[in-house]
């Protein structure tokens, strides 16, 4: 009768059984992607090949790759987990992640494609004095990408024990090193072409896995959403509250509600400022293809998030929060546990096979995302910092690509080492922080560059550093670092980075509500305090951005 006991009793058998299948499937995925990467490397000669995949991908291909780049383990396992444990609040996350694409579609994608070449900074620095703006944009790109990267890699280390049933630190470190080594290989050898194909394959696998799970779950409830919701609410023990917003976000006092607004704002404004997302728009031949790729991405990502709702509530209804919490308090194993349940339950072959498939998809997901992040940071290092800041634009293309490859290796190695040190920490907040920095530092500068005639170098530099420093600074003062009990978090934060007793001086976990306005304000004040005018360059940028004239 008690599912948890059955699960626990059978765990020993099923763990080793599905572990073998997971490892075999994952090995197949790795073999395919390595083959693709090596093939891609033969077609990678110029800088445009390495940075932008030769600009030859179609709208659909790039739309899939965007999906593969964007739907991280945090969205698949994390959001399904929020649904499974906190009910409705998973929707607040996934809707923010989706609506955000409209900012990218309407205001950014085509204009960036038309006026830039390889990096976000190409557009930010277009009208400005190159060195200060590229330095700022390069730093912000690398900070955002590395934070996001750390969250994914530490997450991979944590997942391996849960998904493969291994124990101890060695497996975690081993996973981080393997994931890191593969991502370095994809980027160094395959460049943007290799990375894009890895993301396309991953997106197809992830969507296929999610579709099967969704249909399977719905079939258990006669394809009646209301039945599924009712069963999830009953099983959660929280009744109707499970189907309403507020169990996880905005659950206590005023600050906690403001935190929800802050999160929503950072999610919706962050996407269009994420460098690894932006550089994907350069991989298509023209602005129309950039637009269609965003439209494909919106379709793919939207359907995916609708499916995470069914998967998450399905896990709540069929697996139950007790069994999920027993494996992982954060709920990250909700989707894999649901797969096991659907396949026939723990100890059955069907259960082991489907669990293995979903676990392998989860690792494929992580690999594709970290490769995109490594590529974004290494291309910004080579193209912005090395070629334009250090060498003042005197480098040749071949030299620049060589530097990009070396920096991918170095950034990857640094990420591996940092992740190994951070493996015991709860770094899931780094994803939200990356979105907040992107929204506070990158988006104001990007929008002002494209739409404000008066904008200038001082404004761009002030906006980037102002947004970056305020977002990171506020997190350093937040309950993420200081976990003392307060009215906002009555139980305190046991995972706090600095102290679990001291009450945080700043009550919001998400800095966006303050740091985004600060970013815009700094960009504005910096601009009006400087006499520089960039009117003529702005006229040129506007013509290029809207017509595609002179596009690379």
């Amino acid at each position: 009768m008690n599912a948890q006991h059955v699960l626990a009793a059978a765990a020993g058998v099923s763990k080793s059984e599905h572990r073998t299948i997971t490892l075999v499937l994952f090995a197949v995925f790795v073999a395919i992607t390595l083959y693709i990467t090596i093939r891609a490397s033969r077609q990678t000669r110029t800088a445009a090949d390495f940075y932008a995949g030769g600009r030859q991908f179609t709208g659909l291909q790039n739309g899939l790759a965007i999906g593969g780049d964007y739907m991280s383990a945090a969205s698949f396992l994390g959001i399904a987990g929020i649904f499974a444990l906190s009910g409705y609040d998973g929707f607040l996350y996934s809707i923010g992640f989706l609506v955000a694409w409209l900012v990218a579609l309407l205001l950014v994608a085509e204009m960036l494609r038309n006026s830039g070449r390889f990096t976000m900074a190409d557009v930010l620095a277009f009208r400005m004095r190159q060195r200060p703006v590229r330095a700022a944009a390069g730093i912000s790109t690398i900070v955002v990408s590395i934070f996001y990267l750390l969250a994914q890699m530490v997450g991979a280390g944590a997942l391996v024990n849960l998904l493969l049933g291994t124990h101890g630190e060695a497996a975690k470190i081993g996973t981080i090193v393997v994931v890191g080594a593969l991502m370095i290989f994809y980027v160094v050898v395959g460049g943007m072409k290799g990375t894009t194909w890895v993301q396309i394959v991953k997106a197809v696998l992830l969507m296929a896995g999610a579709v099967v799970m969704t249909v399977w779950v719905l079939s258990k409830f006669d394809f009646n959403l209301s039945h599924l919701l009712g069963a999830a609410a009953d099983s959660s023990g929280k009744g109707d509250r499970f189907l309403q917003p507020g169990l996880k976000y905005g659950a206590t006092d005023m600050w906690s509600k403001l935190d929800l607004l802050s999160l929503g704002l950072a999610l919706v404004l962050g996407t269009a400022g994420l460098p690894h997302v932006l550089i994907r728009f350069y991989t298509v031949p023209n602005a129309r293809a950039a637009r269609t790729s965003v439209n494909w991405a919106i379709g793919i990502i939207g359907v995916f998030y609708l499916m995470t709702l069914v998967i998450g509530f399905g896990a709540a209804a069929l697996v139950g929060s007790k069994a999920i919490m027993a494996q992982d308090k954060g709920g990250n194993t909700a989707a894999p546990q649901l797969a096991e349940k659907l396949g026939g339950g723990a100890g059955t072959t069907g259960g082991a096979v489907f669990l293995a498939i979903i676990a392998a998809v989860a690792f494929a997901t992580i690999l594709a995302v970290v490769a995109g992040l490594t590529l974004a940071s290494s291309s910004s290092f080579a193209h912005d910092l090395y070629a334009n800041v250090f060498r003042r634009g005197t480098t040749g293309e071949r030299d620049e690509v060589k530097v990009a490859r070396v920096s991918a290796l170095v950034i990857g190695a640094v990420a591996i080492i940092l992740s190994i040190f951070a493996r015991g920490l709860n770094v899931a907040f780094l994803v939200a922080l990356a979105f907040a920095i992107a929204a506070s530092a990158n988006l104001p500068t990007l929008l002002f560059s494209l739409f404000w005639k008066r904008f200038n170098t001082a404004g761009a530099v002030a906006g980037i550093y102002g947004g970056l420093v305020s977002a990171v600074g506020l997190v350093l003062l937040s309950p993420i670092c200081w976990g003392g009990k307060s009215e906002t978090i009555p139980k305190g934060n046991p995972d706090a980075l600095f102290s679990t007793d001291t009450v945080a001086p700043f009550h919001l976990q998400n800095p966006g509500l303050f740091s985004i306005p600060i970013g815009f304000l700094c960009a504005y004040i910096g601009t009006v305090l400087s006499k520089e005018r960039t009117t003529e360059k702005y006229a040129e940028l506007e013509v290029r951005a809207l017509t595609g004239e002179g596009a690379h």
Partner: protein
Amino acid sequence: MSAESTAPQEPHARPEPDEAAYLAIGASPEFARLRAAFRRFVFPLTVAFLTWYLLYVVLSAYARDFMAEKVVGEINVALVFGLLQFVSTFLIAVAYERYSRRTLEPLAAGVVTGAPATGGARAADEEDAE
């Protein structure tokens, strides 16, 4: 759709314009029409979808009784509101794609192909430019 063959994104064979040429294009009435058509569509829509999204987040934080009301079976206002965010996102994407193909792309094609000839027409259409 007739603009398909002269789509503006294909700068093949055309030499890269110099700075003066960009300024001339930027000052042309054709370009002013393109910019106005772009902004007329995109700016209000951005304000609209951001407001619509923030309304959803604000209601989720502050109007929980309203969001909790059941519509059909176990389906409550919060779920319907959330699903409508998906619907509106898909519809805006489709609407923008149609607008781009029908209005923006032909206008952009007109700007580029017409650019060299319109240098003299600047003053006449000055009021069009803002």
